[in-house]
């Protein structure tokens, strides 16, 4: 019999049975204090699952003195970032009591929740769901006395990948336009700073409208001063002009102003942003939620353009079918536009095949409503022209041309 090692002689920790469906979430508090080991900003308390590597990373990402833009104890900053390769941290920062050293100012108090990738997937990779669950079971305000240790939390994730209720919430055209423009900029920028009158609801809906597998790519902070040390992708700044100017001077940062969002022409807009517009405007939140929820978990950020186009066409196709099935009396009267002539439509087909999104939009708009004999004849002409053109061209799978062929075949109801 092999001799026992010192490890074998140790008392095994009591096995706690985890309730079914719950997820273990670690927590830590990063703030300024005088402790036995250190003075100043440090992890003052953490749960047993926080390792030394996690603690080091949390100290790097943790906001320290004067990091909150607004010196208001009621202001809350929400942050989300990766922690190493396989973990994520969702944190909530507020101003706490006076700085311990008596030098003025308040301590910046951050409560962090750390979970591994598998657990995060159970929350549909949505940081706001983790925060909601944490707020439901925990008072995240700093207490009179700082804790010295914290337990691991058991949270119960719930809900479908996409919450249709949140889509329904965004019904004002101004909000919708802002969200579409914001989505385009968020997807196109490596680092985006946003300013103006935004609220956390924009971020919540943005995450809700992203495929689950893409969500972890978008680390964010809100109402924290910009620092290159904290490598967030989306950085929410308040209306402090000095801070905005300082941040805008940094290399590789784009700026998005919620108060006057820069509209992007449809032709150059990211296809996923256009899909978001369709999802918000079609007033079928359940259908939009279902379509996004069905996007496979293997989807990467690079695939988002093609998937956005596909979902948009799928949504439009559904509407066409519904319009066709509906009784003629209830359908709106379709009058072909005066300028809809055969020659122009054929040119649009050619442009669409070259990847012109505006041309695709116009073709889609032409046949999206109730069928009409004149339009049907034009559709058949366009379909023949499309078949002729696509026969001569060869596109790489996944290329812009290949996506255009896919969309055109859905619009014109032919397969090349």
């Amino acid at each position, binding site marked *: 019999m092999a001799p026992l090692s010192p490890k074998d002689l140790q008392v095994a920790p009591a096995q706690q049975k985890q309730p079914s469906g719950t997820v273990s979430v670690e927590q830590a508090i990063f703030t300024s204090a005088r402790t036995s080991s250190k003075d100043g900003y440090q992890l003052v308390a953490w749960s047993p699952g926080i390792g030394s590597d996690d603690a*080091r990373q949390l100290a790097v990402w943790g906001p320290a003195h004067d990091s909150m833009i607004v010196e208001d104890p009621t202001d809350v900053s929400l942050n989300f970032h990766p922690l190493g390769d396989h973990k994520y941290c969702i944190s909530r920062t507020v101003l706490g009591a*006076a700085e311990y050293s008596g030098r003025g100012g308040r301590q910046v108090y951050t409560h962090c929740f750390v979970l591994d990738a598998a657990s995060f997937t159970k929350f549909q990779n949505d940081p706001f769901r983790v925060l909601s669950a944490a707020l439901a079971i925990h008072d995240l305000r700093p207490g009179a006395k700082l804790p010295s240790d914290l337990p691991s939390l058991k949270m119960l994730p719930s809900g479908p990948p996409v919450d249709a209720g949140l889509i329904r919430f965004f019904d004002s055209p101004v909000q919708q336009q802002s969200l579409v423009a914001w989505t385009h900029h968020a997807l196109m920028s490596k680092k985006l700073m946003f300013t103006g009158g935004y609220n956390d609801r924009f971020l919540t809906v943005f995450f809700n409208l992203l495929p689950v597998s893409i969500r972890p790519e978008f680390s964010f902070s809100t109402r924290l*001063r910009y*620092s290159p040390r904290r490598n967030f992708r989306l950085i929410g700044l308040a209306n402090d002009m000095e801070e905005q100017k300082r941040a805008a001077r940094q290399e590789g940062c784009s700026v998005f102003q919620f108060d006057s969002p820069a509209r992007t022409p449809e032709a150059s807009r990211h296809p996923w942003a256009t899909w978001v517009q369709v999802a918000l405007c079609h007033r079928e939140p359940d259908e939009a939620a279902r379509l996004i929820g069905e996007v496979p978990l293997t989807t990467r950020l690079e695939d988002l353009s093609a998937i956005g186009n596909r979902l948009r066409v799928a949504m439009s196709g559904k509407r066409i079918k519904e319009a066709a099935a509906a009784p003629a009396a209830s359908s709106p009267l379709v009058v072909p536009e005066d300028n809809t002539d055969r020659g122009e439509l054929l040119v649009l087909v050619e442009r669409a095949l070259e990847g012109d999104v505006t041309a695709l939009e116009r073709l889609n708009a032409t046949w999206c409503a109730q069928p009409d004999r004149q339009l049907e004849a034009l559709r058949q002409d366009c379909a023949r022209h499309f078949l002729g053109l696509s026969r001569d061209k060869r596109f790489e799978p996944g290329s812009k041309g290949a996506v255009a062929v896919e969309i055109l075949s859905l619009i014109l109801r032919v397969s090349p």
Partner: protein
Amino acid sequence: MTKRVLVAMDSYRLAECAVPLACYICGVDNNYNTELCRHCAAPLALSHQARTQGVRPQMVAVLGTAAAGKTVYLGMLLDMLTRQNSRVQVLARGAFSITLQQRTMMALSTCRFPEKTPNEPDRWNWVHCQAKVNSKKNAMELIMPDMAGEAILEEIDHPNAYPAIHSFLEKCSAVILLADTDRIERGGAEQNYFLMKLITYLSEQDNRQNRGKSTRPVAIVFSKADRCEPCFDNPELYAREKTPNLWQQVQQRFTNYGFFASGVAGSVGFREEPGEGTSAVPLRIEPRGIVEPFEWLVRKV
């Protein structure tokens, strides 16, 4: 007939911007127009300044725990040296070098200590100045950052956590170590341990290059010494009695060292405000022993 003329290509002027600019602290290449180094977040103004000077600036580190008084010491030192001073003259290079002095003096003039230095390197104040000691022929170019105490400790515990501190400590020619006399007097041992860690870290950095004791000049300054008069009388004896481990380590690891005592606030009171907690109030400004450690270091470098 057309005369042959030379027309300058304006676009060629942009070529200058295409040449990368190496950070003076960490040496990483950056875009010419960038404000902060993409690796260590040190201001690239230091590199621009260094390029225009004929002499390479020397670096002096001011180190200490959080709330040891680094900002007040550096700010007061610069304020005193930029005035008429018979022993050492300092001339700031670049407007950014004035900010630390300005912030410290503005705070002290309103009966406040300057706020805590943020942990983020991009928000530290850096000073680039020319220092001239009367007895020396040539003036020296110096770079001195005001770094956060927590960041220094984090770097010592986990090397490379702060690339700016790592590179700076590797390259710095001299070090001022601040020990908080107030906390030593209250019986806390953390100053002793922190400074021992620093001494070990610095000497090991030097030992990588050459065996034996380090020749880098180190000034150990007991800050807030106004709260302990015997410290002013004989700082070395004070170190031997109150921080014996530190004293021993310095003896064993460095050849150029000196013990000093300094104080800025002659008297400190405490103000309790509802909802704001307790804050320290400097009741009068009475700088003592501020210039001496710096002058000693500049002569040794």
